[in-house]
């Protein structure tokens, strides 16, 4: 499959806007999870602007492709993606985490169009996505379901319950993407509860596995937009990413999991994110 250069360029532009905007939200609120926002943003931008079928004017359209942000703390990434996709006006982003804002620290489907399910506690998105995929399999609907989890999040056992059932039921309409930035809240995943080799684990559970550079838009487009028909198994995309990607002082630093910038750091980030 060949990817149009202009599509890659469009996604890059969206991702840049999302990074700048998300960091502005975090700076203003002095709350958020910018490290994980930045490792995931290229993946979300690729899905929303190069892969998924949806109509922001009809968020309940039954044949829409679904995206579940299982690492629900990365709302800077999710909210900027939904806003750029047209689900709500940009002015709403300014309310991020303010009292009674519809833009919670973790997403709520009852507040915000485009949010498919409520996440926040880890290990919830993959089981729900599995249910959505089973519904599609039952009805023969051709929508796809994408779920993004963190790599540390894979320590939650509920993911492996879902993996067993998704593999067993051959849910080819389901794509699991793991944001493999190798850092969890306090330290590296491998120093916490060794998770490699993740590809072998998912192959053993009946998944087709693809390893990609999670910041290579062309590679993400190719693996995520390939038709699942006839695959006969769910797809697991292990996206190797960099926590804090795009800002020099944030990259690969665990403290930026929920670190927030002061004015000087924000200004420097805006200079780098161009």
């Amino acid at each position, binding site marked *: 499959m060949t990817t149009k250069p202009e599509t890659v360029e469009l996604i890059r532009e969206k991702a840049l806007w999302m990074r700048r905007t998300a960091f502005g939200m975090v700076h203003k609120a002095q709350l958020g999870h910018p490290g994980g926002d930045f490792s995931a943003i290229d993946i979300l931008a690729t899905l929303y602007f190069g892969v998924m079928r949806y109509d922001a004017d009809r968020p309940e359209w039954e044949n829409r492709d679904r995206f579940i942000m299982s690492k629900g703390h990365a709302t800077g990434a999710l909210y900027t993606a939904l806003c750029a996709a047209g689900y709500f006006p940009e002015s709403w982003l300014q309310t991020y985490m303010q009292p009674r804002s519809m833009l919670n620290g973790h997403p709520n489907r009852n507040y915000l169009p485009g949010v498919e*399910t*409520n996440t926040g506690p880890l290990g*919830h998105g993959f089981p729900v996505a599995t249910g959505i995929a089973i519904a599609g399999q039952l009805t023969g609907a051709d929508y796809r379901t994408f779920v993004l989890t963190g790599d540390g999040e894979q320590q939650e056992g*509920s993911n492996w319950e879902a993996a067993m059932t998704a593999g067993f039921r051959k849910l080819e309409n389901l794509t699991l993407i793991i944001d493999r930035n190798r850092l969890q809240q306090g330290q590296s995943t491998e120093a916490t509860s060794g998770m490699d080799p993740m590809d072998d684990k998912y192959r053993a559970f009946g998944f087709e596995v693809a390893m990609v550079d999670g910041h290579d838009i062309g590679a993400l487009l190719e693996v995520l937009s390939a038709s699942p028909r006839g695959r006969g198994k769910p797809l697991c995309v292990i996206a190797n990413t960099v926590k804090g990607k795009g800002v020099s002082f944030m990259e690969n630093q665990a403290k930026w999991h929920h670190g927030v910038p002061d004015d000087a750091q924000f200004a420097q980030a805006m200079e780098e994110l161009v």
Partner: protein
Amino acid sequence: MAHDGSPTPRLHDCRNAWVETLEALAAEDERIVAVVNDSTGSSKLGGFQKKFPDRLINVGIAEQLMVGVGAGLANGGRIPFVSAASCFLTGRSLEQVKADVAYANFNVKLVGQSSGVAYGELGATHHSIEDFAWLRPLTNITVIAPADAWETAEAVKWAAAHQGPVYLRLSRMPVPDLDIVGRVFTPGKAELVRSGEDVTVIACGTTVHLAAEAADRLADKGLSVRVLNMATINPLDEAAVLAAARETGAIVTVEEASVRGGLGGAVAELTAGECPVPVERLGFPGFVPTGSTEWLFEEYGLSVPGICAAVRKVLARVTA
């Protein structure tokens, strides 16, 4: 024999009403699906599986996944009845019930089987006496504990038609049909089982028929006992409780559940604030020993003599 010499009424396993109703509804509405955790047999869903093999989704022994899949099926336009032993459905997957079903407000029907102390001999791991207390603060989940086979069928029908999360708390303990004519199932409303003016017994689920029999026995002694079937624990019929407090001045609650945070807790919370009257709560004080369901009911006063004693106790507090 009943106390008045009439023949002992026939007892029914309400699970039969549950599956017969679900199968009839599923035949009419292809959106209805069942989700189980290897609990097809204990949920009596074998017939459903034969009729609708694709629509019985067995995720294996994986309760977190089971409830998450229920939410996902609702996202995909299905009407899932997630059926499992209530101890695991509400305990093991409580965070999924909270986040994926209640907080996300998905149209999921949770069906707790073998609730209370139905698995009496298996011990406290398998008792489900905490479920009311766990689910009541999740205010958008309608919690219903039907009292008999008729009410079970009506509750299943209502749950299927209702848009929103529901918890049906079913039992495998055989119970008689309540002897009330012209019944209409109204969720959120107490059902008057016996009229009375001296005291009110508020019961739910498997204990309602015991409350009715206790009232009849006390009537023979000249006491006028109101009995309410509070099938819906959440939202509570506050008007009926407050009317009982005002009009009868004393309340006994009876439930096959912990006395902390369930029906008795709800009644005590409400009356303490709005109309303080003596309240006696019958139920289980906490973890209870191993023993048959029948033995546990007798031991903890979930019996006709136990309810009669609680009525006398609460009335003594009124006159004290």
